[in-house]
């Protein structure tokens, strides 16, 4: 297993949205709250770009600044290289899918979809044709004349999407659009959204706090925390090579061990001493420094005999969760460690609490983390 290298932007890559030193604060003086702190990102055309972070991290604020609903305190927002700061939202060729959909309850499904084009003054026939096309695209032809209050949540979601896509925006903003749906519908809509993005070729900027959703759908992800962008990268980079402990913790499950760098072990590789054993970890570090090592629970083999460079551990508990079994372990230095093993009937075996095992980390799967952002 190898870590995907950073995908460099292609030479013909054009940026759709660019923010430069974007800043947004509320209040003043001592009570100033910095919602966005020096955010500079570059979203390419035709990209499915996700803003990921816990609630309050500033992702929705960023989206609202791009849409034009709020004014930035400082910085620039460029659309295809042009500053759009002076434009009110109704003059920006950018549309939004709202978290609660914000459908107009006094209009039919078709009227909702046609609203933007009507406001733009498109000719009637063109609107009718485009509405029909959008209804087909989101598979809602049969419900065109329904009131939006008389359709299901999933259908409302589709109408909101169609409404935002209909006027052919250059960028589509989606503010946690799937959060109101149940699990199964959410999975379906993830596929659907991805399909729509590919078919329409429109740049999608998607906001979510659900890391699984972000990994499944995005071309690139920006992980945000406390108004800052911590890391931008494709899903593999974000998962396999998180820049710091926050990103590592937020995306997927992780074991993070405290250790010390002993020696170089080739380009980008180091001998690291953790929990009484020396292992090889990858990343950036200086010899002798204290360091954190990330090991994902699925990147470990559990052995019953002592093995060089394997971490000795004691079994604390075992939980069967269907496809996997989770082992809760305690390392030599007392640190907790979780391992996830794939189940298959022939390999299934139970371990007793207190049993001794050795953990062998997969090749190149121990990752050095940078300094933690606080």
């Amino acid at each position, binding site marked *: 297993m190898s870590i995907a290298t950073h995908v460099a932007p292609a030479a013909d890559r054009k940026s759709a949205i660019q923010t430069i030193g974007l800043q947004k604060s509320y209040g003043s003086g001592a009570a100033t709250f910095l919602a966005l702190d020096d955010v500079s990102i570059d979203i390419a055309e035709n990209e499915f770009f996700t803003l990921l972070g816990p609630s309050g991290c500033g992702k929705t604020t960023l989206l609202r600044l791009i*849409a*034009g*609903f709020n004014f930035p305190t400082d910085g620039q927002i460029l659309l295809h290289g042009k500053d759009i700061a002076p434009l*009110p*939202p*109704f*003059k920006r060729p*950018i*549309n*939004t899918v*709202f978290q*609660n959909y*914000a459908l*107009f*309850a*006094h209009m039919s499904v078709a009227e909702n979809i046609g*609203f*933007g084009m009507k*406001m*733009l003054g498109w000719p009637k026939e063109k609107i009718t044709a485009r509405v029909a096309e959008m209804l087909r695209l989101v598979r809602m032809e049969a419900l065109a004349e329904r009131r939006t209050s008389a359709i299901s949540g999933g259908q409302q979601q589709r109408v909101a999407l169609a*409404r*935002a896509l209909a*006027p052919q925006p250059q960028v589509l903003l989606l503010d946690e659009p799937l959060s109101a749906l149940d699990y199964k519908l959410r999975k379906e809509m993830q596929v659907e959204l991805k399909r729509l993005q590919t078919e329409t070729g429109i740049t999608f900027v998607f906001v979510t706090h659900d890391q699984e959703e972000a990994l499944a759908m995005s071309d690139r992800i920006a992980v945000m925390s406390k108004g800052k962008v911590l890391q931008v990268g494709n899903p593999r980079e974000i998962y396999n090579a998180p820049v710091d402990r926050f990103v590592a913790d937020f995306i997927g499950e992780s074991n993070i061990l405290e250790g010390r760098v002993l020696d170089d072990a080739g380009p980008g590789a180091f001998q690291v001493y953790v929990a009484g054993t020396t292992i090889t970890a990858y990343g950036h570090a200086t010899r002798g420094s204290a360091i954190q090592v990330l090991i994902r629970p699925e990147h470990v083999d559990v052995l019953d005999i002592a093995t060089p460079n394997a971490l000795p551990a004691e079994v604390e508990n075992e939980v069967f969760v269907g496809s996997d079994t989770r082992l809760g372990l305690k390392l030599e230095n007392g640190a907790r460690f979780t391992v996830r093993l794939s189940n298959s009937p022939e390999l299934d075996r139970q371990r007793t609490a207190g049993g001794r095992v050795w953990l062998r980390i997969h090749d190149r799967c121990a990752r050095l983390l940078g300094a933690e952002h606080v």
Partner: protein
Amino acid sequence: MATKAKAFDLKAQPGFSAIARIAVVSLYLPIIILVVFSFNATSSLGVWGGFSFGWFVMAWHNDLIINAALFSLFLATVAGVFATIMATMAAIAMTRSDAYRGQTISYALINQPLIVPEIVTAISLLIVFAAVKSATGYSGTGYLVIAHTAFCIPFAYLPIRARLEGMDLNLETAAADLYADPWKTFVHVTLPRLGPGIVAGFMLAFVVSLDDVVITDLVKSGGQETLPTFMLGQIRRDMTPEVNAAATMLLIPSILLVTAVHLINRKK
């Protein structure tokens, strides 16, 4: 032997049901008696002398009553429309924004007519309008229209404001996102969503104007009798069921409108 075990009713309180029933019956009984006697065949207000439409026919042919009724409707319509338009504008300006300077004073002003005893407002209007009348020589319906509009505004304001507060702010944001400028947003999104609130506001303003007697009585000039002021003028005389008939005619639009407002609110 076995008695049927009755479940303990958690919410019941002894006697409350009887009080509630008696209260509601008492609210209606006097009005019902008043209406019943408007159909009395004799001129008694206390002894039933048989059924008759006679007093209604009489009221119908009494120009004083008919003119007063028509003027009441005219005044209620005009003041209701003015008050509703002004209240709608004010409600849009005053709801759904962060606290701003002048918010409390504006709110107090809007609701001020609700608080001041009617007789005090009526007399102060009498004083001021009398001065204006003698200064300008104008004694038309303008005085009544402006007085009624003023005390109708808080009633029209109430349901409109409630409706605005219940409205999803995102709807207007969504409209702006879909290329509607502020005016188009208002016409295509805010106004239609506000519709039921505006209708309810107008109806309440209409009913309140129709009901007013104190302010109207003191502000009116000659020939500006409304149905309530006409009825008030009848107290000192020998009352006949003709007044009951006029009252019954005045009751009908009020009850219909209030029931309509109730149904509109429930549908929301």
